[in-house]
């Protein structure tokens, strides 16, 4: 693997890891606050799973960088500032209400399922193996979030209104998950990762009918066709700063501490 391709793959892995880490952290904010006890436990599990997946991707990036896995992952998570994070804005938005949280998780899960199926065929074997393993867990996540989206979308006037509001908000950010970078083209040509546009088409084919069945109408302009403002992965909302100050608070008190 030449240096340019390797760096592209590291960047790709970090972007994936950051999305999962930040979403997992946002989800963890429900711990102790979910609507019912059972869901509190279930959703905390999902939050832990996402953070676990982030660790897998950080570790693959560490191997490529020839760094110690633990040291690398800790540095990435605890000692980078917001501008160095590569997550999309969708996952850093505050957790909002339960409708927003469930819908965000559903949209992310469905995108991830589509991507993992493709990544499981990656020419980079460690990536293919990890994707196949994570995919089995995502099947369950998707089932869980689909169940909620359906019930809230078809539930009471209030639950439907909250879901539609969440959808209108989230669709403004969803497209960013599919924006390609120059490096992605290199990786695609090496058969390491899928083409972003292909992911977008497959994902939309799945989510649009599902949402409509749940009586939720994707807002106009969310077919991602036409001139939309591109958001780059180093651009963040102010919410990421708040999240990181919480996430990194303890580690930064004593950076040399052994855990």
């Amino acid at each position, binding site marked *: 693997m030449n240096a340019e391709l390797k760096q592209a793959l590291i960047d790709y892995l970090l972007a994936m890891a950051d999305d999962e880490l930040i979403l997992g952290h946002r989800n963890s904010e429900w711990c102790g606050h979910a609507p019912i006890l059972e869901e509190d436990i*279930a959703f905390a599990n999902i939050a*832990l799973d996402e953070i676990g997946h982030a660790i897998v991707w950080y570790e693959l990036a560490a191997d490529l960088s020839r760094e110690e896995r633990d040291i690398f992952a800790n540095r990435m998570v605890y000692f980078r500032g917001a501008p160095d994070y590569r997550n999309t804005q969708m996952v850093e938005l505050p957790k909002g209400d339960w409708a927003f949280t469930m819908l965000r998780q559903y949209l992310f899960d469905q995108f991830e399922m589509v991507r993992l199926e493709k990544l499981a065929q990656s020419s980079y074997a460690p990536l293919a193996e990890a994707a196949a393993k994570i995919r089995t867990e995502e099947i369950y996540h998707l*089932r869980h979030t689909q169940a909620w989206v359906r019930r809230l979308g078809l539930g009471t006037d209030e639950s439907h209104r909250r879901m539609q509001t969440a959808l209108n908000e989230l669709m403004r950010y969803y497209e960013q998950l599919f924006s390609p970078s120059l490096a992605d083209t290199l990786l695609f040509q090496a058969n390491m990762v899928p083409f972003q546009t292909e992911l977008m088409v497959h994902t939309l084919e799945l989510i649009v009918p599902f949402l409509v069945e749940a009586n939720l109408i994707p807002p106009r302009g969310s077919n991602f066709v036409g001139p939309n403002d591109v958001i780059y992965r180093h651009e963040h909302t102010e919410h990421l700063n708040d999240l990181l100050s919480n996430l990194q608070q303890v580690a930064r008190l004593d950076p040399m501490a052994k855990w």
Partner: protein
Amino acid sequence: MSDTHASDTQWPRYMVLHQEREDKPHQHAGTVHASDAEMALLNARDVFVRRPDCVSLWVVRADLIFARTQEELALNPDWLDNIQATSDRTEAYYVFAKLTQKAQFSHIGEVEAENPPHALKMALQKYPKTQGLVWWVFPVKVVLKSTPDDIAAMFSPAATKDFRDQANFHALSVLRKLMRDQKQEAE
């Protein structure tokens, strides 16, 4: 088992029955509240399948379970005799029993019956050697079950999650070691 009262704003209760291995019976794991059976099954997975020892999960609404204790049966010895089959329209019922005070309800078998009391009568006749402290019967058709396809996604991932198993934290041995070290330092 008490029924869900109309004034109760809580979601209905579902009994969760899990099977640890193919060669073991389904056993009562606990209860979850849920809006419906599908949600109950999903939440049952997260609440009760923390370790990978599960191959099958069932949920059944608690108010659909017909339950009688040994004492209740002993107090009304004639009660069962008065139950007679009146038609040939029967359906399959699951039979569960609690065999000791410490044990969970365990799957005993199935009977064909017209209604829940009739199912209990059939169960007592079919399993005369089973000393149930409490009996449960409920129609097979009201149970929502995981499928073999669910094992990979719902149950197996837990196998790699050591952090969920308290035994892996060695809390007691770590504590003892800390106390030993402290003691040695003091000496």
